[in-house]
């Protein structure tokens, strides 16, 4: 009986812990991390991406130094650069600047977090946690919700 109660309580606590994720913005120091999302990974893909907007309302510049995620073997901060029609993806070993009074936007075609050798596919509707570490604000764990790859699934039932 006590065991059952404890289990029920644990479930409730898990639900409670997950609740802030639905508000889907996080504050740490003078930073606001808004709407961390990922995209469903295509079948068989071994890499995934993470996107969010980081706003700095403080008076000092900050810097996203690293990201870690149990979802993958490695997690990196990347920049896409168009160079004479060639797309180059490069890690930002020095991190990503979050200017005072400004923001950094991670979105497709620009900056993104790259999750390398993911342990399981990212499934639409699910979520995973990742910890972002900033130079000044410290570390914060946020939940990335996984959005469907295709917003409209019409392609799936059109037939061949």
């Amino acid at each position, binding site marked *: 009986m006590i065991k059952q109660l404890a289990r029920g309580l644990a479930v409730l606590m898990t639900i409670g812990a997950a609740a802030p994720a639905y508000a889907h913005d996080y504050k740490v120091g003078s930073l606001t991390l808004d709407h961390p999302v990922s995209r469903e990974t295509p*079948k068989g893909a071994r890499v995934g991406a993470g996107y969010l907007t980081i706003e700095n309302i403080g008076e000092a510049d900050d810097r996203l130094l690293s990201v870690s995620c149990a979802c993958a073997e490695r997690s990196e901060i990347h920049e896409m650069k168009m160079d004479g029609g060639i797309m180059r*993806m490069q890690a930002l070993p020095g991190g990503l600047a979050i200017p005072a009074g400004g923001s950094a936007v991670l979105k497709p*075609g620009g900056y993104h977090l790259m999750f390398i050798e993911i342990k399981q596919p990212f499934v639409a509707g699910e979520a995973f946690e990742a910890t972002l570490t900033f130079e000044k604000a410290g570390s914060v764990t946020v939940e990335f919700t996984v959005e469907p790859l*295709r917003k409209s699934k019409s392609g799936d039932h059109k037939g061949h």
Partner: protein
Amino acid sequence: MRALIVMCAGLALVAAAVAAVVWSGLVDIEDTSTSSYSGEASIGGPFELVNGDGETVTDADFAGKPLIVYFGFTYCPDICPTELLAIADALDLLPAATAAKFQPLFITVDPERDTPDVVRDYVTSFHPNMIGLTGSARQIKRAASAYRVYYSRQETDDGPYTMAHSSYIYVMDGSGRYVRHFRMGTSPDEIAAALETVADPA
């Protein structure tokens, strides 16, 4: 009088600045059009690749069908899914019968990791008609150079290698002739509108 001279000089500076901005804008636009359409006659051509079942396929297998061609790789978290989604979304904007006229192709520039079964599975997440193609290093090199696609392996400090590559969506007509290409970030609506004219030339 002196104030007038200063004002005139100020105005001249502003005018020069405006002219410089306009001029640089024009140069940009000119550069864009040159890179978009230079050598259009020589984009595309015969290719021999390997499909998801490990079978050899050539351009002749798609004869009569307009092609939508994208070169990328599956170890690409950001750009490649975004561009393949643009193709899929564009096809879905068209009437089913029009969309069915096209053969969307995903050709990997990373045959080492993208084996036949990898490309076969990968494309199913985008569009049911999309075909994934790979091949030997030599076959990929030939197909890419026919489409003037640049790609190169980039080593990273301590992680897995990645690929730098040109990211364009190419449209070829049913006779295998180059029609046009789209640069990265082109909206599905724009692609769909262009596909419509290819499917049903006025």
